[in-house]
């Protein structure tokens, strides 16, 4: 070690000079320098603050990327209209009306099968046969009549509590506003499909599942033969059609009115 002096071993050394120098130079490093150096050495071994929190950087970047992705998805997402759920609900109702027997059969059958263990054995065959029996298609006249769901069941079975439970009932919150939305959805579907409203069994289903107070408003204005007898009545019917939003049918009726009564001046459509 250099603090312990060594004797040079070549010809460039002089023992007397070496001894004189060693006698002269006996200073020692100041204590404060020792402390400062050792403190700096110990400090250098400690991990710096930046290094200790180095893991937060990738986490912060990941969070930023995630937030950006979320915002991008939020912005680019197609906005869903507020009335879409109601329209979808109405579409389901229309589908329900297009195959009322099948739907009722399924719901009733499911309910019966679910409640089957709780019933007596003598009731079960009848219920099962009723639940699984395919319903005969109703006549067009019957389809046009508002039919309550209870009428699909036999009177004997109607009093059974099982059937009361299995009877699809309209929810209480299905109010007039919903009925109006149902009407609009129905009209939209009918216009898109181009079906004749008289032959559309949806009207029956709507009437069947609408509450009693809403049944009147759900009826589509129709120009019948009585209306067509008089041009004024026919025109009033046409106006009702227009007010109901059935512009296409109103136009057809208006054309028929002009052809049937050429002398009658048909006022122009407000649209």
């Amino acid at each position, binding site marked *: 070690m250099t603090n312990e002096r060594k004797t040079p071993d070549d010809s460039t050394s002089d023992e007397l000079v070496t001894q004189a120098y060693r006698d*002269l130079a006996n200073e020692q490093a100041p204590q404060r320098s020792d402390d400062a150096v050792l403190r700096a050495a110990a400090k250098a071994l400690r991990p710096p603050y930046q290094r200790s929190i180095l893991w937060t950087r990738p986490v912060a970047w990941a969070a930023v990327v995630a937030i950006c992705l979320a915002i991008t998805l939020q912005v680019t997402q197609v906005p869903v209209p507020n009335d879409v759920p109601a329209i979808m609900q109405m579409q389901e109702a229309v589908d329900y009306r297009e195959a009322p027997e099948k739907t009722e059969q399924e719901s009733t059958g499911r309910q019966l099968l679910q409640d089957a263990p709780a019933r007596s054995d003598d009731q079960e065959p009848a219920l099962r046969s009723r639940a699984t029996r395919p319903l005969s298609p109703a006549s067009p006249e019957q389809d046009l009549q508002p039919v309550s769901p209870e009428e699909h069941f036999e009177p004997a079975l109607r009093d059974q509590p099982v059937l009361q439970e299995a009877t699809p009932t309209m929810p209480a919150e299905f109010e007039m506003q919903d009925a109006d939305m149902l009407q609009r959805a129905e009209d939209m579907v009918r216009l898109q499909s181009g079906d004749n409203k008289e032959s559309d069994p949806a009207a029956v289903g709507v009437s069947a599942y609408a509450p009693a107070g809403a049944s009147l408003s759900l009826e589509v204005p129709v120009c019948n033969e009585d209306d067509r007898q008089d041009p004024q009545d026919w025109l009033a019917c046409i106006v009702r059609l227009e007010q109901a939003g059935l512009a296409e049918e109103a136009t057809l009726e208006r054309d028929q009115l002009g052809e049937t009564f050429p002398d009658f001046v048909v006022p122009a459509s407000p649209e």
Partner: protein
Amino acid sequence: MSYALPLCSTTGVAYAPRMEPNPADSALMLRYKDGDIKAFETLYRRHNDALYRYLLRHCRHPDSAEDVFQEVWGKIIKARETYRPTAKFTTFLYRVAHNCFIDHIRRNKRHTHTLDIEPDHQPDPGEPPETIVERSLARRRLDAALRDLPDEQRDAFLLREEAGLTLDEIAAVTGTNRETTKSRLRYAVNKLRAAIDEPAEAL
């Protein structure tokens, strides 16, 4: 009058044969690199006083020497990450010190400080007064001669005496070849010897 008194008889400076200390300096440095502060303390205690004297003789002022001393050790601490035991640690240490001293001179162009410190030497109680006086005069002559040496010769002499480096190692530290180093060292020793052998009346 020839100065033939045993100058190191009362100095108390340890003398050891040339041998590699155990554990080696390089091993201590590597241990410090791995986080062992005790290894650095051991390494520091081995070299701190010699390095300080080397810088004190160069800078000729205690404060400057202390500044450069701490700067040297700061660089050693900082260099632990890249340290490779390819050379003797003492050579590495004094090469850093040599460069720091050169930088210090460049920073302080007006390097006019002089070493006015009397060596802290306590005479033996039973020593005759004339011997004490003669020893003190010899130290003054040596100190003056060392101060008058050219920087290169003083550097070579101090590296030999304080660091215990060989000619090749001194050449490596100073960036010269072996023969140049040998020549500088011979000149320095001859001048110092002449200063020691001067009669007392010369001062």
